[in-house]
């Protein structure tokens, strides 16, 4: 019995190994995507294009404009006429326009000596992107008013991620998204393809037990995924400089469990689906949406309506991303994520169980 199981695994492995193109694609895709997104994606507000309307280019105005031009967040795009404001914003050439009062210098002096004053600056902002608008308004006020404002009263500190590198935040999220989809896509065709091609009959009359058919399908993909996982973790550490202060082994074992979960999910889809097209569309296209929107990778879950917050509990990526963030970035030890680990383990058992039951049903 043991022997036939091994030969089944060998058969499945040969299937995969002989299709060199697919194997290369499967190994490359997650690695390339994670590195690419790790470097490229960021939500911090940067390179905001700013234009200035100043009736008189006095010393105070020129000085303020210089401060903006030298700030990393902003790109100064020149002076414009008041009637150009609308057009410049609408065409997207600039995202914010600073309008100085004509007697800016005099009023600024008044303020510095403590006298009351009317508004001296108007900011016209393209608010179609809400976050960019909010952050640039805040930064601009800080730069323009400097010591004259309340800003000087605060001292701020950013913990755990002092350079505000978004890569830290995104690597766990991207891993959570890509690993589950790629792994599910791997196994999602395994059973349904046999059904579609007709070789399923052959498998069914063989003396091997159904559960072993399922496991022999999973094992080669599990090995491939482990290799991919190791590459991803090495690259995140050495190339993207994700701290991983919570311990490499903890992160690795949690990720292994997640791989197992994703493979089981794919298997379940494969058993339920009627055609390969259906299986692939479910595991890639349909599942992509909840994984993207409800995992908390980009969009905070607490922003969603209550119903969907509850629904997000059954999205595996949510738990993985949460746990891996704690371990990779906050440096929590493995014991701190026992809850997430248990939930992911439970989900894996459910997916595998459903696969086995459904598969047995089909046999009868």
């Amino acid at each position, binding site marked *: 019995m043991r022997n036939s199981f091994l030969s089944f695994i060998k058969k499945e492995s040969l299937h995969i190994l002989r299709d060199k193109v697919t194997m290369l694609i499967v190994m490359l895709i997650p690695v390339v995507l994670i590195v690419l997104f790790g470097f490229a994606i960021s939500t911090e507000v940067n390179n905001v294009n700013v234009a200035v309307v100043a009736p008189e280019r006095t010393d105070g105005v020129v000085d303020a404009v210089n401060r903006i031009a030298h700030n990393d967040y902003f790109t100064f795009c020149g002076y414009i006429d008041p009637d150009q404001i609308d057009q410049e914003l609408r065409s997207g050439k600039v995202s914010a326009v600073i309008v100085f009062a004509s007697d800016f210098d005099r009023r600024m002096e008044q303020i510095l000596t403590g006298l009351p*004053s009317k508004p001296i600056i108007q900011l016209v902002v393209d608010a179609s992107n809400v976050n960019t608008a909010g952050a640039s308004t805040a930064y601009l006020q800080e730069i323009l*008013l400097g010591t004259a404002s309340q800003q000087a009263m605060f001292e701020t500190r950013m*913990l755990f991620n002092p350079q505000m590198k978004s890569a830290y935040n995104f690597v766990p999220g991207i891993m959570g998204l890509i690993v589950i989809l*790629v792994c599910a896509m791997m196994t999602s065709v395994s059973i349904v393809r046999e059904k579609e091609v007709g070789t399923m009959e052959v498998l069914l009359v063989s003396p091997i037990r159904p559960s072993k058919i399922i496991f022999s399908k999973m094992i080669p993909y599990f090995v491939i995924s482990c290799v991919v996982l190791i590459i991803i973790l090495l690259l995140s550490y050495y190339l993207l400089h994700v701290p991983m202060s919570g311990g490499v082994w903890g992160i690795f074992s949690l990720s292994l469990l997640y791989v197992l979960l994703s493979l089981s999910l794919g298997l379940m889809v494969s058993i339920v689906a009627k055609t390969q097209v259906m299986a692939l*569309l479910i595991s890639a*296209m349909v599942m992509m949406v909840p994984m993207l929107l409800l995992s908390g990778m980009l969009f905070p879950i607490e922003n969603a309506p209550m119903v969907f917050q509850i629904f997000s509990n059954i999205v595996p990526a949510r738990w993985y991303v949460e746990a891996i963030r704690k371990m990779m970035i906050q440096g929590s030890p493995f014991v701190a994520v026992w809850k997430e680990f248990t939930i992911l383990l439970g989900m894996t058992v459910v997916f595998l169980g459903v696969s086995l039951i459904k598969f047995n049903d089909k046999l009868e």
Partner: protein
Amino acid sequence: MRPFIVLLQKELIKIRRDSFLPKLILSFPILIMLISPMLATMDVRNVNVAVVDLDHSTTSNRIISHIKASEYLSLVGATSEFDLAMQRLEEGKVDVIVQIPDHFERDMGVSTPEKISIIANAVNATKGTMGTQYVIQTIAHALVEFRNEKNPNQMSELVTVQNRFNPTLNYRHYMIPALMIIIFVLVCGFLPALSIVEEKEIGTIEQMNVSPVSRFGFTLSKLIPYWAIGIFVLIAAMMIAHLVYGLVPAGSFWVILLGTVLFILTISGFSLTAANFSNTMQQIMFVLFFFIMIFILMSGLLTPIDSMPDWAQTFTLLLPPRYFVDILRSVYLKGTTLSELWQNFVALGSFAVLFNILAAVTYKKQA
């Protein structure tokens, strides 16, 4: 012409008779448009704030009540023990700690007081920065109000802000055009390619190869149903955006339609080109998945292109959705006109021509 019409009929019947595709094509776009605007919000709200109050004065009370009243911040607790607040922050229950120093109120009257410290958990960089900004604004507001009560005319807002194009600062309005594009990419990207590779894998493509149908005719018959579906998606999505989320395009519908047509042509052409190089359905799915992830995550749909490093910004010039994101968002929110967006249209049009020619040229009538 006649064989082509028959071929087209065959494609339509195939989609209709499938047990899964019609349900997917109908429900997927509608569900996404109905639900995801509620989920895809990066609006920073519910920032949990803990106040460490060492001053215990009227001013510090005023600050605390302002934080409590803010719609963006929620007060978790006020304590005088810093360590306790820090512990809560490490547990993830608190996002920002505000520490008001001892004698803050007394010093504020006479000299420059010790600074208020604001400590943020920046694991989530957006929440860290925006949360800090909200806290600063709220406190500044509280202090201005407090001073004005003591001696009116002392201070007033020095800067007025005018938020154009989305005055209510509704994040959903920013995301709805992006979600429409995600649907176009998924539906018109995955489906046409799968239908060709399925024929390859099952073997029915052999019959096509010996039939008198030209390769252009065959390619076109695969594409036309999905173009129609794309237009259906556009209309359904615009109706949902209007009826459910109250978002009406500020610009012309015809500009949106032109952009959408060019974009659907581009994506489906791209999808077919990829299909011509793949032999199994699994392979084509992986290849398309790879590009579609790049399209979705790097075209400025979810995160701004301006935030990317320079090399990545240059790279995005090669991504067709990037131009459509610009078009759809500007027309929808800002009412930008065709002439202001001509560069985007030229780029998108060139991609459409390029990919469709590639798709027809790379399809070979041989096994």
